[in-house]
C-alpha cells in the first residue's frame, strides 16, 4: 500500500515567528541577523525581503545595500525551538510518525496508518493548516505525496503559499518538468556535476542510466538515480516527547553579563534537569551549554560526564567550568540553555560498605529536599545560591 506523507512548511520560519511576536513588522522586509557584528550574515528573511533580492547567508552589509529600510531582528533560537515544539504537539494528535528540524518550520507526518481515524491525508493536512493559522497565526504550505522527497519538492514548487497533492503513481510525471535544484537531497556539488553535463531538468537527468550516473557520482549514483525518479523509501521517524535528551532554558529578563546571575540561572536549570532525571531513575552522561547573546550569536560547549550523574551538586560543579569555557564574549547574554544528553539508567543498587562521605551527605540532602518539595511545593525550599543577595532583598523591601 502507498504511504500518505504530509509535508508542512512554514516559509521563512524565523521571520514568521518574529513577525508574529512583533506585528508591526508585518509587510516590511524583515531580515533575521545578528546585530552589531561586522561580518554578520542573514539567517532568515521575510518574503518581502526575498523579493528584494536578499538571500540566506548573504552578508548583512550587502543586504543593507540592497535596501536600507530593511528591519533587522536578531535571532532568538530558543523561541523558534519553542514554537516548533508547540507545532509538533498539535500535529502529534494525528499520528505518532512525525519528523521535523529543531527550528526550521518543516514538519513531515506519515498518516498512512491513521486514515481510518482521521480520514484521508489531504483532510488531515487542511485541518492542520487551519489549526496552525488559528493557534499560531502561521499559514503553512502543505503537500501530500507518497514519500518525503516528493512531498518536499511539492512544497518547494508552490512556495511561498499554496498546496500540492501529488497523486499516487504521478510522482515521475510531476517531477519531470522541474529543475534539478528542487530535489532536496541533491547538494551543490551534485548540481554542479549535472550542470557540467548541461543537464538542468529532472527529465534530462533521467535519460542517464545508472551506469552513466556512476561516472560522476560514484557510490551516490543509486541514490541519485532514485531521487530523480521520485523514489524515496526513508521512513518518517516516530515523534518522541520523552527523547533521550533533557533540556532547560533560562531567558534573562534583561540581557546580562553578570557572573552571579549566570551561575544562579545555571543552578536552577541543573536542579530542574536533575529532578527530572531522579524521577525517571536516570542519569545524564553528557551536558551541553548554549549561550545566546543579545546580538543573536551563540556559543556552544559540551562535556562528557564520567560517571553519569543526577546529583545537583556534582552536575553543577561540572557545569560551572563548562559555562566559563562557553562564555567567551563580552556581549550581554539573553538566553542560556542547558542540555543533558545520553541518558542512562541510574544504578539502583546502593553501596554496601560506604562511609559517610561528602557526596553521600549531599545525596541525602537532595533526597530530603525532593521530599519537602513534593509535600509543600516546588518553591518551599531552595539553596542559598538561588536567592537574591541580602542587599538586593533589602533594596526590594525598602
Amino acid at each position, binding site marked *: *500500500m*502507498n504511504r500518505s506523507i504530509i509535508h508542512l512548511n512554514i516559509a521563512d520560519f524565523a521571520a514568521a515567528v518574529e513577525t508574529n511576536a512583533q506585528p508591526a513588522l508585518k509587510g516590511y522586509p524583515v531580515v533575521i541577523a545578528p546585530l552589531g557584528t561586522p561580518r554578520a550574515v542573514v539567517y532568515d528573511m521575510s518574503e518581502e525581503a526575498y523579493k528584494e533580492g536578499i538571500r540566506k547567508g548573504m552578508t548583512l552589509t550587502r543586504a543593507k545595500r540592497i535596501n536600507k529600510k530593511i528591519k533587522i531582528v536578531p535571532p532568538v533560537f530558543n523561541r523558534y525551538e519553542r514554537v516548533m515544539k508547540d507545532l509538533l504537539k498539535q500535529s502529534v494528535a494525528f499520528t505518532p510518525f512525525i519528523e521535523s528540524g529543531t527550528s526550521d518550520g518543516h514538519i513531515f507526518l506519515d498518516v498512512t496508518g491513521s*486514515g481510518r*481515524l482521521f480520514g*484521508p491525508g489531504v*483532510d488531515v493536512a487542511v485541518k492542520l493548516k487551519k489549526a496552525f493559522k488559528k493557534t499560531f497565526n502561521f499559514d503553512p504550505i502543505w503537500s501530500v505525496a507518497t514519500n518525503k522527497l516528493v512531498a518536499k519538492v511539492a512544497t518547494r514548487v508552490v512556495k511561498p503559499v*499554496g498546496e500540492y497533492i501529488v497523486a*499516487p*503513481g504521478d510522482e515521475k510525471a*510531476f517531477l519531470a518538468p522541474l529543475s534539478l535544484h528542487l530535489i532536496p537531497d541533491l547538494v551543490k556539488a551534485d548540481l554542479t556535476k549535472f550542470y557540467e553535463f548541461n543537464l538542468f531538468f529532472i527529465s534530462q537527468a533521467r535519460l542517464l542510466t545508472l551506469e552513466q550516473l556512476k561516472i560522476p557520482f560514484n557510490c551516490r549514483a543509486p541514490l541519485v538515480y532514485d531521487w530523480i525518479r521520485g523514489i524515496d523509501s526513508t521512513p518518517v521517524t516516530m515523534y518522541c516527547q520523552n527523547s533521550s535528551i533533557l533540556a532547560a532554558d533560562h531567558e534573562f529578563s534583561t540581557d546580562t553579563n553578570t557572573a552571579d546571575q549566570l551561575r544562579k540561572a545555571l543552578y536552577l536549570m541543573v536542579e530542574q534537569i536533575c529532578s527530572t532525571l531522579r524521577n525517571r531513575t536516570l542519569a545524564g552522561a553528557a551536558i551541553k551549554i548554549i549561550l545566546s547573546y543579545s546580538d543573536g550569536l551563540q556559543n556552544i560547549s559540551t562535556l562528557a560526564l564520567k560517571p553519569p550523574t543526577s546529583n545537583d551538586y556534582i552536575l553543577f560543579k561540572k557545569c560551572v567550568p563548562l559555562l566559563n569555557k562557553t562564555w567567551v564574549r563580552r556581549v550581554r547574554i539573553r538566553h542560556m540553555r542547558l542540555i543533558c544528553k545520553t541518558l542512562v539508567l541510574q544504578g539502583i543498587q546502593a553501596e554496601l560498605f560506604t562511609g559517610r562521605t561528602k557526596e553521600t551527605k549531599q545525596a541525602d540532602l537532595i533526597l530530603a529536599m525532593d521530599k519537602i518539595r513534593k509535600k509543600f511545593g516546588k518553591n518551599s525550599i531552595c539553596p542559598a545560591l538561588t536567592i537574591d543577595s541580602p542587599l538586593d532583598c533589602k533594596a526590594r523591601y525598602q
Partner: protein
Amino acid sequence: MSPPPSLTNQIFVGTSGYSYGEWIDAGFYPDGTHSSNMLDAYMQIFHATELNYTWYQMPKAQAIHRLCAKVPEHFRFAAKLTRTMTHEIQKGEWPKQVMLFRQGIEPLTRSGKLLCILIQLPPYFERSVKFRHYLAALLDELEGLPVAVEFRHASWATDKVFSELEQRNVTLVSVDEPDLPGLFPRLDVVTNPDLFYVRFHGRNARGWRSGNMQTQFDYDYTDQELAEWATIIKTAIMPETSAGCIFFNNHVRGQAPKNALRLIDLLR
C-alpha cells in the same frame, strides 16, 4: 468483480473519490492494490467519479490531462469547485481563482469527460444578501460550464431559488443526509433538464457534526432506503431530465461502493 452493464447511457453512478486504502479491507479493491492502481480497478466497475481533491487543491491542467489519459472514453468526472471559492472566499481574489479553476479543468472539458462542476457550499452559507450576491456572481463567472450547486443550509430550500437555478440551467443537487435542524432537506426538485445530481452522504445524525470525516460519513444505507430513492429517481427525477449522476460519499469502510452497486441493481 466483473463490471456491471451500464445502467443507461445517461445515468452515471459512482462514488465521491476512489482512492481509499480501507476499501481494500472492505473487499472492494483486491488485496495489495496500490493507490496508483485504484482508478484502474475502480473504472472496471463504475463509469464516473467525483474528483474530491479539486476541493483541496486548485486543479492543475497537466495532472488532469494525465488523469484523462488513464480512463476509457466513456468515463466521466464531476469536479468539486476548490475551497477558495466555497469555504475560504477572499474578497476580490476569487474571480482569479475561478479563472485558474477553468484553466485547470480544461483537459476535462476539451475531452468531453466533464459531467459538471460541483459547487459544495458550507453549512454556514445561508441565504443572506451577501451570500446570494456572491453565488450569483460565481455562477456568472462559471457561465458556459455545466454546474451543480449543493446547499447545506435549509434557508435555500425555496421556490425562488429553484426558479433562479432553472433560469440559469444550473442543477440543484439532491442530497441525502441526516434529518437535522438547519440542514438542506431531501428534495427531488429538478432545475436543469440536462442533468440531475444526487449525493448520498449517509444519515449518521450523531456523527454529522463531529468534525471528523470518518464519523460523519460512516453510514450503510439499508435496502429499503435505497429502494425509496430508486423509486424517486425513476418516477420523479428521470422523466424530467435527459441525464444524471448519482454519487455516494459514505466512503467509510467501503460502504459507498457497496451502496452504489446496490442502487444500480435497484434502478435497473
